[in-house]
């Protein structure tokens, strides 16, 4: 990944680490000879052209981008984001490390603020992902369950509603009409449960902006319970989409850690 810090009008630091190209650290396009690796947590100290002491710490994370921090004389420096940083007072684009807005004089928040914002985004991002997934899987499950029950429904259509169905299903005896009602209800219940879960996750994601840790913990627990519930109903479901599940759990754990880091920093 590549990170850029626009320190001031005449100093730009670029870091490239991980990926396929060579790792390198440059100040104003001049390469600094440091041995960058992603093995374990590492700190690199160097000097800026004006003599200030800078340290970059690189901490690899499991399955996600490494955590990179630049400090100059102990002060955290905000990296330049993809989107321009806007002044909260007047909306003009400012440089990320400006102390004051050059257009209106509004005081800009410290770099920690941007780091916290990223933490909150990480924590709520995992929950939003779950909300979207449940919202998509609702209609999908509806159609899949309907498709599955179609052959049986066609068979039942030709039978007398008051007859008992000749075979036992799950150890129980059904009449034709009650079996029909059951089959008609199943897709709807799948849809409703998924949409309720999507709504819960959306609510948690919103709440997560104010209270990230409780929101992400509750979302993670709910997701774990949904997996277990599905596994009890249909043991094979445990293996279905296992990669997706692992990925979501990684995201959730990352979210929990981000929320904890935020809480530690806010004291």
């Amino acid at each position, binding site marked *: 990944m590549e990170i850029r810090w626009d320190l001031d009008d005449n100093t730009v630091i670029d870091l490239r680490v991980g990926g396929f190209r060579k790792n390198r650290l440059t100040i104003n396009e001049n390469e600094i000879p440091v041995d960058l690796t992603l093995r374990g947590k590492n700190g690199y100290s160097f000097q800026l052209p004006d003599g200030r002491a800078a340290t970059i710490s690189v901490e690899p994370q499991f399955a996600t981008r490494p955590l990179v921090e630049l400090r100059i004389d*102990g002060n955290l420096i905000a990296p330049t984001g993809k989107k321009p940083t806007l002044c909260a007072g007047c909306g003009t684009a400012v440089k990320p490390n400006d102390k004051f807005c050059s257009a209106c004089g509004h005081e800009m928040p410290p770099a920690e603020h941007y780091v916290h914002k990223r933490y909150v985004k990480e924590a709520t991002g995992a929950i939003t992902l779950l909300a979207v997934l449940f919202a998509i899987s609702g209609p999908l499950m509806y159609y899949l369950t309907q498709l599955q029950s179609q052959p049986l429904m066609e068979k039942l259509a030709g039978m007398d509603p008051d007859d008992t169905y000749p075979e036992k299903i799950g150890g129980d005896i059904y009449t034709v009409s009650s079996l029909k009602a059951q089959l008609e209800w199943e897709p709807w219940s799948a849809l409703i449960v998924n949409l309720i879960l999507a709504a819960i996750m959306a609510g948690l994601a919103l709440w997560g902006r104010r209270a990230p840790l409780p929101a992400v913990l509750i979302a993670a627990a709910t997701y774990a*319970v949904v997996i277990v519930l599905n596994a009890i109903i249909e043991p094979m479901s445990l293996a279905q989409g296992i990669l997706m599940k692992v990925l979501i759990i990684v995201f959730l754990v990352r979210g929990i850690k981000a929320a904890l880091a935020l809480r530690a920093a806010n004291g």
Partner: protein
Amino acid sequence: MDELTEQPGLHCPRCQVPLRTGAKFCSACGAPADPAAIDTERRQTARDGARFALHWIGIQRIIFLFGLLLLSTLVLGMIGRDDTTPWSEVVMSVIDAVIVFAFAASRYWQILPLLGPPQADMREAIRLLALALAFIALMAGYFALIEKAGIPIIRVSSSFEAAGWGIGLMILIDAIMPAIVEELAFRGIIQTELEQITGMREALLIQAALFSVLHLLPMMFPSHFIMGLCFGYLRQRTKSLYPGMLLHASWNTLAICQEVYWT
């Protein structure tokens, strides 16, 4: 005049602009002029890291306990609730109890203060009693509503009846034991651990949510969330687990009696 001259040899530790005589802060960037203050910032970063590590360990303990309880529910669900004998249920609740007691024992100094007698004066006791009664009325109303809506509730009594076990055993295994184990797990271990990380109110909310989802019955999520809040509140007010256990066990017993005698 004197105050606005630059002091030779002194620079702002953050932005390197020369400092004015006697300045406590840099006039260019607002950083404290004392280099020690920068040191404090560094120390604070280190302290944040330590606090994060401590909290992460606490969260890991909660995830571990919750995961084990969830796993035992999964195993019970997969081998299937046998309708002819309650033994699978008995074995799983004993396993749950062992897990929870082992957790409690491993951090006994956190749990011990909660095992003292409840602390409440007369007024408070009456208030909490009223809360308990209101809670039972609310739950009874909710469950009556669910039954009226025709949503099936799992009958716990059928396997006991099939095996010829009496109501005394049923109350012991399905009402009193879960009350003790769940109070110890959620109001004892999890809430105490969370209080050190998040503060009282959020701890109360999170443990109630964890408690409600662990019951694996989507229809019961709202009711068990309120239950969790109620028991957690009792534990916070009285600084003891016993009132919650008592209320929990009474509610369970009431539910079982309702199932056996009135339906």
